[in-house]
């Protein structure tokens, strides 16, 4: 079932320095919604590189284009112009089918809500991308992931029998199970109380530090952003700042000024 994507035909143009390290990057990414006078430039020529094995947060006020950027990076949406690269693959050149396969083989997702298929058990949800690809899960790795997220007792439960925090942990486990190159998290703590949120964020950080995954997280919560190693600030479809080693205070300060921009 699984098809490997022929990356050799998709060559990178320029940015050679970043090429080795970049898990994902964009080149003059533009996304326009609507047409003519009602057109909105959600992404206005964004150039950004997300390094391998790094935890990056994307922040910005509502309508800044942060979710759009993530959707385009994850192949859930396409650009109006410009390029999105995932490793050495340019997403824009992939067919719908190849995109789907790329998502299930190279990407992991944690959404804000409704992360799980209600009719499947926790374990079935975790192995879903592998099952869809007809791949046999690596038992040792799977056990390890389950142990890490701490769901051993609840594997046979269905999502409606799990708390919000447990549901998000299942989602993280799912994102880890297939050992994706990049995990995209869209407001993963948005619906959680503080301590459940902290657990989920710890897990995402663990994925980077222990397992060398790349995590890109969209959030508007400064505390959540402080778990990352780098914060990219967006406003009006443009990158307005790039901060390394964020703390909640620095993020809040910066957000205030972005809000004023």
């Amino acid at each position, binding site marked *: 079932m699984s098809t490997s994507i022929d990356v050799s035909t998709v060559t990178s143009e320029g940015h050679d320095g970043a090429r080795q390290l970049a898990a994902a990057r964009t080149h003059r990414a533009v996304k326009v919604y609507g047409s003519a006078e009602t057109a909105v430039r959600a992404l206005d020529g964004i150039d950004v590189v997300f390094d391998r094995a790094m935890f990056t947060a994307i922040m910005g006020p509502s309508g800044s284009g942060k979710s759009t950027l993530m959707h385009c990076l994850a192949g859930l949406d396409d650009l109006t112009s410009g390029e999105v690269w995932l490793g050495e693959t340019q997403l824009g050149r992939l067919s719908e089918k190849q995109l789907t*396969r790329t998502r299930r083989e190279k990407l992991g997702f944690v959404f804000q809500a409704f*992360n799980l298929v*209600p009719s499947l058990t926790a374990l079935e949800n975790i192995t879903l991308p592998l099952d869809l690809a007809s791949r046999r899960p690596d038992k040792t790795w799977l056990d390890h992931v389950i142990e890490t997220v701490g769901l051993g007792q609840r594997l046979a439960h269905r999502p*409606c029998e799990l708390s919000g925090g447990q549901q998000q942990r299942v989602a993280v486990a799912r994102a880890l199970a297939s050992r994706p190159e990049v995990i995209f998290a869209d407001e993963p703590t948005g619906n959680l109380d503080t301590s459940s949120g902290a657990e989920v964020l710890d897990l995402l950080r663990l994925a980077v530090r222990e397992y060398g995954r790349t995590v890109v997280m969209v959030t508007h919560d400064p505390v959540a952003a402080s778990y990352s190693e780098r914060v990219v600030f967006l406003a009006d479809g443009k990158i307005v700042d790039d901060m390394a080693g964020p703390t909640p205070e620095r993020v809040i300060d910066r957000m205030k000024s972005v809000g004023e921009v």
Partner: protein
Amino acid sequence: MFRTTFKNLRARKRRLLTTALAVTIGVAFMAGTLVIADTISRTFDDLFADATEGIDAAVRGSQSIDVDFGPEARNPVPETLVAQIAELDGAAAVEGQVSGYAQFLDKDDEPVGNPGTGAPTLGFNWNEVPELNPFELTDGGPPSGAGEVVIDRGTARDGGFAVGDTIAVLTQAGRGDFTVTGIVTFGGQDRPAGATTALFETTTAQDLVGEPGTFQEIAVVAGEGVSEEDLVTQIQAIAPAGVEVLTGEQYTEDSQNQVQEGLSFFNTFLLVFAGIALFVGSFIIYNTFNILVAQRTGELGLLRALGASRRQVFGSVILEATIVGVIAGVIGLVLGIGLASLLKLAMAGLGIELPGGAPVVTVRTAITALATGMVITVLAALVPARRAGAVPPLVALRQRSVEDRALPRRRTIAGGVVTAIGLASLGYGLWGEPGNAIQFVGLGALVTFIGVALLAPVLASPFVKGVGGLIAKLRGTPAALAEKNALRNPRRTSATASALMIGVGLVGFITIFAASTKASIDKTIDDAFTGDLVVASGTFGFGGLPPEVADEIAALPEIDLVSGMRFGPARVDGEDTGVVAVNTDQMARLADIGISEGSADDFGVSSFGIHEDVAEEKGWELGTPVTIEFVDTGAQTFTVDVIYSENALAGPWFIDTAAFEANYAQQFDAQIYASLTEGASLAKARESVEEIVDPYPAAEVQDQEEYTEATAGQIDQLLGLVYLLLVFAVIIAVIGISNTLALSIYERTHELGLLRAVGMTRQQMRSSIRWESVMIALFGTILGLTVGLVFGWAVVSALADEGFSVFQAPVSQLVVIALLAALAGVIASLRPARRAAKLDMLEAIMTE
């Protein structure tokens, strides 16, 4: 409050239409039936009104026997009455009428028209009085001698006959060649209702299609200033016994009523199928409204929280149902008119040319269609509407879940009770022998279907887990998801499947019933018929082979025993029915009818043979006198001389051919049975018989095996029609599956988006929806086949006394039905699956 209803309706126009469609088909079916019935009866009314316009008084035999099929039988009136009436002051013109069987042969010696489909082949005398002649000459002139005939324009056209040509006609006098002197139409129609018409000069007609010295009727035209009533009074004064006199008006009405009666069976037959379609449709409506209410729970809760009363919420759902019902009624009516035209075309294809032009849409039809559509929809929506009203305001504040709650136990109990009641009613109708058995059986079947539908959710889980699990093992994750989704809401799955169950159940029942009937016929004929050859007249009860044919066959050296079989209307012990007549001494050796009492040896002209069931039911025994009335000879007393146990060939009772000849004017053999002389060759005997039968192209010589096959084959014809009509029920069920899936997909938009995001391909998505549909369809089919099997077994075993000796469930045909149902599932999933696959992923994820 009602504004929200309209907003809801407008927002989901497509769903509204597909929902309405489920009822529309049933309504269309019903409206079509009514339209075609009205069209036919209006046209016939007009035709008869035209044809009988000139008649001011009609004289006919007062003895009548009304049998289920064909026109009523009457005794003839004496020819001499015509001259007597002519002398009356009030009569301006008078003429006798003759009618009977006349079959044209075309230039290849093939029968013209389609007697096999029931279209009559008629012969009449040519009426000289213009007022009394309903035919219009379009070419040539009237017949004037023994060798002349006037033919209908349809026959002239189809057979390529023109004035001056010679045409062969089969009548009770055998085959004869006639010169065509004229070509006619009737009420402007070439061949109304497909009937062929041969018109002879009166004396010739009496010889060929009537009875010399008599008329079937005498038609009289009143003189200037004489009222119909006066004329009738004058005629009555001179009329002999056994004759009745009608005014022209009464006569017209009577003719029209007879057509109506003939049509009513046909109408009832079609309306039964319309009823089935509506019943299936109501399941779909019920299901759709249930889903809609479930999906709107949050919204309804909000309305309740904002102050809407239970009644208002209930009312808004009912209003929605009413609007859907009215739309369904209107579309159904329009489609029904189209359907009527299609049906007419189809019948014309079968050779039954229906007269008349534009379809007749009466106010009654329109009101019935609209009311039915509305009432069925509202009734089906009652329970969902109550559920909507019962939504507590608090729900609006809570997160809703698409998961179904556990099934209440009382529903299962109710299902069991309802099923039991249904089966009990079915059983009572079948075995209890009440007067209105059909009603009990029909109602029992209906209630059983409802009961099984109530029980279905309990059965759905094990079924889907079993079959679905197997498919999931073989077909991977999409199929496994399909299984989970089908299981998610067993009530919805089974309500959807139940609609299919009804159609499949009936198809299964008919299949089993037909197979059992055929097997039983095979067996009884094998057991009962010990002869070697059968000549079937091929005229299906109308006319047949003249007695000379049987005589000629009997004279063949290769043939030992011969018996013709004749049918005639008779009133036996006060009941309008028919009798069979055979050459008893020969027939007793040609067939083993299991004579248990008496002997066929001295079976005479007033002997009566009865089946043992009749003996038991009526309390008759050997020597009991039984009164049989005939239209020609009146009441005659017969004596029970034989009681037998096998009715496959003889039916419930029979008389001797000699008795038939003594009591009927017209003599035709519908069938001739024969056996070979010891040592004669079958092939040679057959050749000789075929030579004798050669002038009768409709007749067919069959050996025992062919005879069995032909008898059983008649069932296939009817079966085809029934299947065709049941297809509508299945189509509605498929629409239902498609509709439910579409609604479920809408409900799962989010989840589907998630699945796509984490890597489900479009193809996997389609496959998943398809499997879900197939699982639902298979579940419905298995339920249906089970119910069909039970019905089939019950009906066949209840009819064991009527000769249903074999119960047969044709496995291969039932498997084909199951496969077709799976295919129906695939078809039902096409549109929903495509929509699910095309789903905008981002929008789906971001919803809510």
